[in-house]
């Protein structure tokens, strides 16, 4: 689940070298749009299509208005810009759709699969399995996109060096538009999954902050890392709450992930699957 949110981060970071702080609010925005359309009695697929279109347009607008004037600025400036974007998105989505929490139903029940629990005494929620499948599918598609296609190669070139990529004739604008649009779609999927579990509400944006330790564990550049990191963080967080929690008075779920990431950083600063950078003067 965390992996899905983290995926959006990795995508944009990998392709544009920008750490997109607004991914969380994009998740929120997408989920809220989708839910509101459903509540107005729209057909499921129609709502999905419209939300996808909205996210693509949003990605394009972001590229045009925010990123294009900031080409070649230091990464920290870009990071700040995405924080600004966070505010805009959060305000906008609540202004348009209201701020009360919504429930979301996808038609897949959040119940343990029966035959599994009977046979081996493990309970895996049907919905969790579905989410894992979706995540796996997304990773596969994205991996193919990055490794095998022209666009993927262009994306990696852009991430390496904006100027060099421009110099060899890669249309930076188009590439960024594509990346942000794709990230928007990933955000929608993540938003739907989280929405079913916890309802679509403002707290979704905090979930996105949890994606940060996931990224650190997995490495910023690696899609597979996002998945593995998501699993580790998700599992260790829950286990810590159950086993260590009672010893110190509970409630450690809120920061445990960060501390895990912090300790991990001390041992391996580039993450599990990240690329090692060598600094040159």
């Amino acid at each position, binding site marked *: 689940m965390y992996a899905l949110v983290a995926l959006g981060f990795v995508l944009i970071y990998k392709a544009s070298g920008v*750490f997109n702080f607004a991914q969380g609010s994009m998740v929120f925005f997408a989920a809220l749009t989708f839910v509101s359309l459903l509540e107005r009695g729209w057909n499921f697929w129609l709502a999905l299509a419209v939300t996808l279109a909205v996210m693509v347009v949003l990605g394009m607008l972001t590229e045009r*208005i*925010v990123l294009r*004037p*900031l080409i070649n*600025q230091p*990464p*920290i*400036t870009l*990071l*700040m*810009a995405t*924080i*600004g*974007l*966070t*505010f*805009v*998105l*959060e*305000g*906008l989505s*609540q*202004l348009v759709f*209201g*701020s009360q929490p919504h429930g979301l139903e996808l038609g897949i029940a959040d119940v343990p699969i029966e035959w599994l629990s009977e046979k081996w005494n493990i309970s895996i929620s049907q919905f969790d399995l579905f989410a894992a499948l979706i995540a796996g599918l997304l990773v596969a598609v994205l991996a193919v996109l990055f490794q095998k296609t022209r666009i993927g190669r262009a994306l990696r070139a852009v991430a390496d060096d904006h100027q060099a990529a421009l110099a060899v004739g890669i249309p930076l604008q188009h590439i960024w538009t594509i990346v942000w649009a794709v990230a928007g779609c990933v955000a929608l999927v993540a938003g739907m999954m989280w929405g079913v579990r916890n309802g679509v509400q403002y707290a979704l944006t905090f979930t996105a*902050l949890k994606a*940060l*330790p996931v*990224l*650190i564990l997995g490495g*910023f550049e690696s899609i597979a890392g996002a998945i593995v990191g998501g699993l580790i963080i998700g599992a260790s967080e829950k286990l810590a709450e159950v086993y260590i929690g009672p010893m*110190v*008075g509970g*409630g*450690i779920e*809120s*920061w445990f992930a*960060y*501390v895990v*990431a*912090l300790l991990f*950083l*001390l041992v391996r*600063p580039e993450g599990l699957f990240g690329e090692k950078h060598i*600094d*040159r*003067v």
Partner: protein
Amino acid sequence: MLYREAGQFKSTYGQDQQIFPILQDRVAMIALLLVAFVAVPIFGDQYWLSAIITPFLILSLAALGLNILTGYAGQLSLGTAAFMAVGAFMAYNAMLRIPHIPVLGAFAIGGLSAAAVGIVFGLPSLRIKGLYLAVATLACQFFVLWLINRVGWFSNHSSSGVITAQRMVILGYEFVSPASKYLLTLGVVTAMALAAKNLMRSETGRAFMAVRDMDVAAAVVGIPMMRTKLLAFAISSFYCGVAGALYAFCYLGTVEPEAFVLDLSFRVLFMIIIGGVGSILGSFLGAAFITLFPILLNFVSKGLESALGVEMNHAMVSNTEAIIFGGLIIFFLIVEPNGLARMWQIAKEKLRLWPFPH
């Protein structure tokens, strides 16, 4: 022609190294301080003093602290509010547990404890930088707030978690009225801003900037990386800690963890972005902008309401505020990545030449 430097010669090293080498700047600064120390407390009304100017000064101090770390030493931090919380709670505990401690001493203890926490959470900065460091400081933010909430010692086992701050007494004078609280804040902020300005002009400050510009290169020319980075964390956290203590004692009047959530960290970060990263003046300009802007926006929306005759609900106003706020940040980054402080510099350059084009 507002600026005329002709005829002002520097004949000693001392003159060359003044903070304000130009006469007009010195006069303006003194005038500003006079206004702040004398005119504002006399003429300012209660509401403005207690609800706007005092928090502005306190947040300036926090922004200054973050600016030392992020702007000068180049270490991005999202844990500002946590350091402020440490400062506030330790100052409270110092007043509670050490008999006859002077208020400023308690504030200093708050600052020093914050500095200690800062050093601990600054340790990862030796191995990581940039975004990774931001996450590390995020860990600090969540962990510290959890600890304060969880461990009863910090809040003196108060059941609600909200504690009333103690009375502040210096030399038998009690600080109760908004004006006196304002003056206390102003005094602390002025002294610490001056110290920061001088620190940044010293060898330490230059070492910070070398680390910011390229840490590998700085290490190569012999700047001790560990000492410099940890020192930056310590000094910055000290500033934030004192700011936090002031925030609790002079502004809120209560000490509570809810006042120091992540949102505050972001606000302080915005202050230095909008004001200018790596500039003392920028911290103040940014804090002024961020504290005054919502009030202005509120004013405008009230005016619109009465002009159009539409009732705007509270949620709508706050959401619109968020949108405009975020939009402005992006706008600032695009138009002037170096913030208000840089704009001020450009304006000064223009005024020197005005009304001639060259």
